[in-house]
């Protein structure tokens, strides 16, 4: 049961971080960072399976554009994850910059979709 493993890792890391915070804040952050990475390593394959099955459904129905949506969601999750880690380290400004960078990348990825929607709307308007 991966969910139990995730809970156990999170609880153990929290206890360790609280204990370490009294002596060294950097170590406390490192513990939470490592715990976060382990949780990500356990949970991300599930998202990958989900995305893969959606992609195969889209491919079997010959749908275009689904790959982009899945990619956009994956990037959004990774950016959010990175941002939360930065906030844990007390670097809110860095987290905001990371999110801004993520938004720019997402928009550049979605540019063809936005452009085609814009063109269709303009062609509809009399």
């Amino acid at each position, binding site marked *: 049961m991966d969910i139990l493993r995730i809970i156990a890792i999170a609880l153990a890391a929290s206890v360790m971080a609280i204990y370490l915070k009294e002596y060294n804040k950097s170590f406390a952050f490192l513990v939470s960072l490592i715990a976060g990475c382990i949780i990500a390593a356990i949970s991300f394959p599930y998202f990958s399976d989900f995305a893969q099955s*959606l992609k195969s*459904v*889209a491919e079997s*129905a*010959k*749908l275009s*554009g*689904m790959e*982009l*949506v*899945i990619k*956009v*969601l994956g*990037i*959004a*999750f990774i*950016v*959010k994850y990175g*941002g939360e880690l930065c906030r844990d380290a007390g670097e809110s400004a860095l987290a905001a910059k990371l*999110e801004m960078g*993520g*938004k720019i990348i*997402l*928009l550049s990825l*979605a540019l063809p*979709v*936005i452009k*085609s*929607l814009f063109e*269709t*709307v303009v*062609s*509809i*308007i*009399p």
Partner: protein
Amino acid sequence: MRRFFIFLFLFCIPLSVSADIYDAADGVDTQSATEIFGDFDFRDIIDNPKEQKISTIWENVVNIFIKDIKTASKSALAVFLTAVLYSIVSGFEEGAEKTAFLICSVTVAGICCTSFAQIAQLAEGAIKNTSIFMSAAIPCFGVLLAAGGAVNSAGLCAPILVSGTIASYIMSYIGVRALFLSFALSVVGGISERFPLKSLASLLRKSAMWLVCGSQTIFCTIIGAGGFASGSLDAAVQKGVKFAASSGIPVLGGILSDAAEAIAGSSAIIKNTAGAAGILLILAIILYPIIKMAAVIVIYSLSAALCEVVSGKKIGSLLNETADTLKIFIGMMAASGVSSIISLSILIKAGGL
């Protein structure tokens, strides 16, 4: 011999007019008619009116509907898959997830827009085709009516042509464009709540609907009132002319009177057959986009219900807006087709022939 030449001369009028009706049918883009009637030649309806392949037509209609259901299901599946992904990020209101959330909305809007644009342009073409056919065919009916002796009923063609042209202009240049604009506004309003455009879109849609309903009502009133009055007048005029010709014109009077009666009968046959062919052509022109739209409406309404369960109201309302706008398009095409069929029916029945 004289009798033969008089008959020949008078027969030339309805024959030349029937050739004009063929040309009017040729001028219309009959691709949609071909899809429904298959390899059926329209001239067959006039040449062999009894040999109509109704079962083949029904088969074609059902096949088109099933084909369009399949095509619409594909885009509905894409929308549904996006809705599933959308539901993952729909709880987040800040950060990169909000951008992903917007991109999902844009993808769904793009899918809806593309299928709407394709079908709506087909519908716009059908409305224009109906109008072109009617403006080409009605003067021919006027000549046929006059040739048949129904001079008062032939006068009906002018109000039908003028009011029909005005009604179709209102429909295609104001109604259809207002609907396109309303859909574009509702798509932009559906992407983000920062653009509150839905009320404006709904106002435009309702105004388009009322405008088209009003113009069609006025059109039907004009042609209906004219149609009732002219029939009895013509019967009286025909009897009077026949009596005057047979008793007033020496020697040739009797022959001319018989010839006029025979010509009136023959031009009535041509007029009625051409009218029936015209009604079938108009049905075929409007039926093809209506079937396509009905398939898309069924699939989009179903997927709107499913998407609302999965991802909330936003995507569902976008799909519902698309389906609602297409429903009004169906109404417009049906109005255009029915008013054309009413005009043709009045012209077929006109003159009491």
